[in-house]
């Protein structure tokens, strides 16, 4: 250490008051480093003094500043009250809308709109439903699964007639 002068890290530790022993020993024996440390220390102290001097204000300044802060604080809760009221209003509207949907929902499910009351009053028998479906299927010219094949066959016939 004694051969080497102070690095930025060494100087910082010295300024912080936490130098290693070797650094302290070097400064004690090295005039150039002592001078550099003193110069740097004075400059940094100057900045501290300046900040303190620049921040010195008469009592009236602090009072005025405090009043401005407290006025600002009392103004902000008013805004937050408004926000709170707006939130309550929005919540009420949302609740009303949701309740409205819930009451309309059963009608939508049945797909009958205004006839929902009648449908609910007269539920359909599943056996009747099955019979109606079988009758509809029997009335078809071909079973539902063969309908595409029927369409293709019809198209082929039409094409053959057109060629003749």
């Amino acid at each position, binding site marked *: 250490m004694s051969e080497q002068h102070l690095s930025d890290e060494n100087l910082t530790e010295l300024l*912080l*008051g936490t130098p290693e022993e070797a650094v302290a020993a070097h400064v004690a024996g090295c005039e150039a480093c002592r001078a550099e440390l003193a110069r740097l220390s004075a400059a940094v102290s100057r900045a*501290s003094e*300046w900040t303190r001097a*620049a921040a*010195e204000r008469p009592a009236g300044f602090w009072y005025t*500043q*405090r009043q401005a802060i407290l006025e600002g604080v009392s103004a*902000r809760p008013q805004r937050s009250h408004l926000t709170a009221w707006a939130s309550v209003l929005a919540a009420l509207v949302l609740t009303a809308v949701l309740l409205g949907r819930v009451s309309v929902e059963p009608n939508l499910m049945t797909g009958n709109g205004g006839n929902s009351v009648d449908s609910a009053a007269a539920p359909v028998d599943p056996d009747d439903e099955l019979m109606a479906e079988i009758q509809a299927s029997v009335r078809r010219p071909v079973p539902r699964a063969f309908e595409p094949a029927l369409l293709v066959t019809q198209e082929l016939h039409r094409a053959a007639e057109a060629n003749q």
Partner: protein
Amino acid sequence: MTVERTLTQPIAGVLTARDRASRSSGAVEARAGIGIREEEFEQLVREHQQRIFRVLMGLVRDADAADTLTQECFLRAYQKRATFRGEASVGTWLVRIAVNLAMDHGRSRRRAFWSRVMGGGTRNAEGDAVAMLEVAHPDASPERALAARQELAAVWDAADALAPQQRTVFLLRFAEEMTLEEIANATDLEVGTVKAHLFRAVGAVRKRVGHRGTEARRKER
């Protein structure tokens, strides 16, 4: 300054007892950990406004901006008072808000201000502060006063050239005399990172001060 003093205690030491009192635990501090009650807020402002103004003055170096930002700092603190949980002291928590505001404020205004002060133009609050420094050392010769001005300019020049976080760490340590842990809390950095920022900042100031010293000696010849 003697070597003994330098080796045994940190530098600066310009904060007064009142300054320190505004940093230590006050009435509001005692309840740390459960938020800040509304009725305590005025007391909080009373205890910390001068320190916050001083921190902001160091960071933005513009009295009007520091005043506005101080007010904004407390308004934000009021809004967030329920979230204060006492991990750091109230003072450090407020400094943290102030630092964030100063960062947002940007550096362009700082540069504008400093060029105004160093240009020797109109007298204003900051110019008065330079004069006050000279009043604080009435025995200083004109040469010493000029040297002091140059030292100060070198520090601010170096600080301006630093990255915002480095500048903030530097000022909080050497102008505000906060501990490394307090700075870490206020800036949301690790203590090791705070130290690394300080190394760089001190290196930059060292270079500037050395450069100015060389220039001054050359002029004297």
